[in-house]
């Protein structure tokens, strides 16, 4: 009934895993090695070696006491607040984008009415709006969260509208024929059906959110990853600057990986359905 997996013998399986690891990471590792060799050779203060960057990063962030999981104060002062703002803004965008997207996807009238305004608003680049947002919302955390939310709602909103519109009419007819109440029609037919598109939109939003988080901290802030990066640049603490970039890369990587896990659980049925259909 279900798909059968032939399990190979353990040695062959281990060999296959090593091979897969090598294929995926060999280029990356190779590039890092090349980078180390190149920067060690050049000896420029603008280009510390990867080893130096890593050592300094550990100094900056992992030199705290054992009770804090070895995390330094800098983590609590800058990194965690930044991530908090990022996730809050992004979550607001996902919720708001999904709700509005379902409404606009279902109602042609609402869509025709709201679309021109939204097309205009979404074309405004987030970073350029920072000054206006400061005037409107001040210079504290709220402003940054609202900025992130405003800038990242668009992929979710547009994808949700698309997904809701594309729900199979047979599924809707089925729900209607069983007299499902509208709340159930939306929660149990339309939303799940549109979920693949919504999730795709949320994923794009996540990457945008990281950018906006950093940019929002370039102006009038007192803490945060973006603030520290800018600070490092202005005070010519170049290794700190590189560490900040490394941190951002790690942050993006981890968030995407985490999102990938959630996506896999949420959309298990979607993959199964389409694997079958492609046979």
């Amino acid at each position: 009934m279900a798909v059968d997996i032939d399990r190979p013998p353990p040695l062959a399986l281990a060999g296959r895993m090593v091979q897969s690891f090598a294929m995926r990471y060999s280029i990356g590792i190779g590039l890092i090695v090349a980078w180390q060799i190149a920067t060690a050779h050049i000896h420029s203060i603008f280009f510390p070696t990867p080893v130096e960057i890593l050592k300094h990063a550990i100094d900056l962030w992992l030199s705290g006491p054992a009770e804090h999981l070895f995390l330094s104060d800098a983590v609590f002062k800058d990194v965690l607040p930044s991530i908090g703002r990022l996730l809050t803004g992004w979550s607001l965008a996902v919720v708001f984008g999904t709700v509005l997207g379902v409404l606009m996807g279902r109602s042609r009238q609402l869509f025709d009415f709201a679309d021109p305004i939204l097309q205009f608003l979404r074309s405004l680049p987030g970073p350029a709006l920072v000054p206006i947002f400061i005037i409107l919302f001040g210079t504290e955390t709220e402003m940054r969260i609202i900025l992130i939310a405003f800038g990242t709602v668009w992929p979710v909103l547009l994808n949700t509208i698309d997904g809701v519109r594309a729900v199979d009419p047979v599924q809707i007819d089925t729900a209607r024929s069983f007299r499902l109440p509208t709340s159930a029609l939306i929660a149990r037919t339309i939303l799940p059906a549109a979920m693949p598109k919504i999730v795709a939109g949320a994923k794009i939003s996540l990457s945008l959110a990281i950018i906006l988080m950093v940019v929002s901290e370039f102006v009038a802030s007192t803490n945060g990853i973006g603030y520290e990066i800018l600070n490092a640049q202005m005070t010519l603490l170049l290794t700190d600057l590189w560490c900040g970039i490394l941190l951002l890369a790690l942050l993006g990587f981890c968030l995407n990986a985490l999102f990938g896990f959630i996506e896999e659980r949420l959309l298990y049925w979607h993959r199964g359905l389409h694997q079958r259909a492609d046979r």
Partner: protein
Amino acid sequence: MERKRLLDVRQLSHRYATGHEAIGELTFGVDDGELVSIVGPSGCGKTTLLKSIAGLQKNTGGTVSVDGEPVNDVPKGLAMVFQDYSRSLLPWLRVYANVELPLRYQALGTEERHRRVAQSLEAVGLDAAAHAYPWQLSGGMQQRVAIARALAYQPRLLLMDEPFASVDAQTRADLEDLVRRVRYQFNATILLVTHDIDEAVYLADRVLVLSGSPSRILAEIAVDLPQTRDQITTRADDVFVQLRSRVAQLIRRQPHTEGNLEPTPI
């Protein structure tokens, strides 16, 4: 004993916005406990008819009433089995949850829901598949799930829109027998639309033969076969063969339309 008239269709007609008249004029009824099949050439508006009866679509003329009440929106106690099971079953829910879903909004207790789901899955022979996803099952099994879902709902009227058109012949034979079996087990009133003439006669108490579009009823034929039927012996029976060829002749003379072609006069 006078049987209650469950479905009353009077002068039903439907014209699309494009001007194409799918249904010309249909007047017929279905009594409580009957299995009526509707057969006609392709494109004669059979699906449009079912959608109008189900309240999924507003017809442009005529009336439909279920149990005396006129149909404006989907009436209570109506279940439908669609031709395309893979698009009708919800792929994010397992089989059990699919069958259970319509029952969740019916004000039954958890126990009653569970009982009905178990009973209908067993009736269609899928009690072992309750934890699978629909897309893990074969086509025939998926359509059984759809039938189980309809049966668990305990509808007054069960509509079936070419339910076996998308499965292979052997599976079709099994599913036809399944329908006859559960019909008595659940005391269901069934209106089944099909393009398969043999199926229409084999399953039904009465066969309605439709013309090409704009469709009207060419003939209403009572099926004088015993209640217990068998794929091999019944189909070889003289009465069956006669009925079958009568229906086939009526239909052969009909134009088969696709889209907006003008039907040729008979």
